[in-house]
């Protein structure tokens, strides 16, 4: 068992609302400065910058996780994480066809840049990535599980796009073992009020859209990592998320 400081909800400049300085290389670099060990890149409805993020993290000694913040048809945000990059990229290809077909207007929403791991712009996504997909929550969960990934409701303590704000509760039938909070101070009151949160695992990630929002080394997880490999850490982290080994 070792202690890993994490931030599992970070947007790059591929998310239209993500700052243009949120390049994969800068995010990994910021993680080092902040003393993080594990970081997940979770852009809106895309994993497109994850390959560059993996390379940048490898250089910086950070364990990367390929992820996505999926918007369901109900406008609810789910954090989806995968233990392997290529699986995440297959998931990405599938989701792409299910995003509403609206063209991005960079003047309103911001640019959506694909980057390499050395801050070079590779291209720009034309489809607006922050609109919803046509997956409802149940379908989205099944899809993520089908790819061997895990998912959980994002920032349930926030009014915009949080599951509780939208649905009024977290339906037990979704079977979420873990939920994400923006602010750890809200955990106790939510545990009392919402039965799905009562015994759930809790992750506190930043949902950073700017470099300065990325978590500092304050939220950590104990992960079994023997015999050590970053792949094993990823695998066991995902296992812990599904099995409520996170408190």
């Amino acid at each position: 068992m070792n202690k890993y400081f994490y931030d599992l909800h970070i947007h790059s400049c591929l998310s239209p609302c993500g700052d243009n300085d949120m390049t994969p290389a800068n995010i990994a670099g910021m993680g080092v400065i902040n003393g993080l060990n594990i970081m997940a890149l979770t852009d809106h409805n895309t994993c497109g910058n994850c390959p560059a993020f993996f390379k940048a993290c490898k250089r910086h000694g950070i364990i990367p996780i390929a992820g996505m913040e999926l918007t369901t048809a109900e406008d609810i945000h789910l954090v989806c994480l995968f233990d392997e990059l290529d699986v995440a990229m297959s998931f990405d290809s599938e989701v792409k066809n299910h995003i509403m077909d609206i063209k991005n207007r960079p003047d309103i929403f911001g640019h959506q840049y694909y980057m390499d791991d050395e801050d070079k712009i590779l291209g720009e996504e034309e489809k607006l990535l922050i609109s919803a997909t046509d997956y409802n929550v149940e379908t989205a969960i099944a899809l993520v599980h089908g790819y061997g990934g895990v998912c959980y409701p994002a920032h349930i303590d926030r009014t915009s796009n949080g599951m509780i704000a939208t649905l009024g509760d977290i339906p037990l039938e979704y079977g979420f073992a873990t939920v994400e909070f923006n602010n750890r101070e809200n955990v106790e009151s939510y545990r009392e009020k919402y039965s799905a949160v009562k015994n759930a695992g809790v992750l506190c990630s930043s949902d950073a859209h700017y470099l300065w929002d990325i978590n500092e080394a304050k939220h950590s997880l104990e992960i079994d990592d023997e015999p050590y490999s970053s792949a094993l850490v990823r695998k066991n982290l995902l296992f812990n998320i599904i099995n409520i080994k996170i408190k």
Partner: protein
Amino acid sequence: MTVNELIDKLELEVLNLEEGDRQIEGGYTGDLLSWVMGRAQSGDMWVTIMTNVNVIAVASLVDCACVVIAENAEIGDEVIAKAKAQGINLLRTPLSSYKICNEQILL
């Protein structure tokens, strides 16, 4: 009907007014921003209880004639500032979404 006429007749609170002469050609009500994004039409009066900053982005994208915030939902100064920056007519009423649409139709 213009946005100015709508404001007068329904006694709407003006949070930001850029183009009072804009014609209202239709209406739409909804709070799921992605849904509105894909369905509201240019020239619509959009009625919603949502007040986060993305409302202004969606209003810009669909080119609404105005946004009417129902039930006096609380709205942050940064959202009003964003409406100013994007040139969005932003109004507010104590009435519910149902009521305000009903009254607008009766005008």
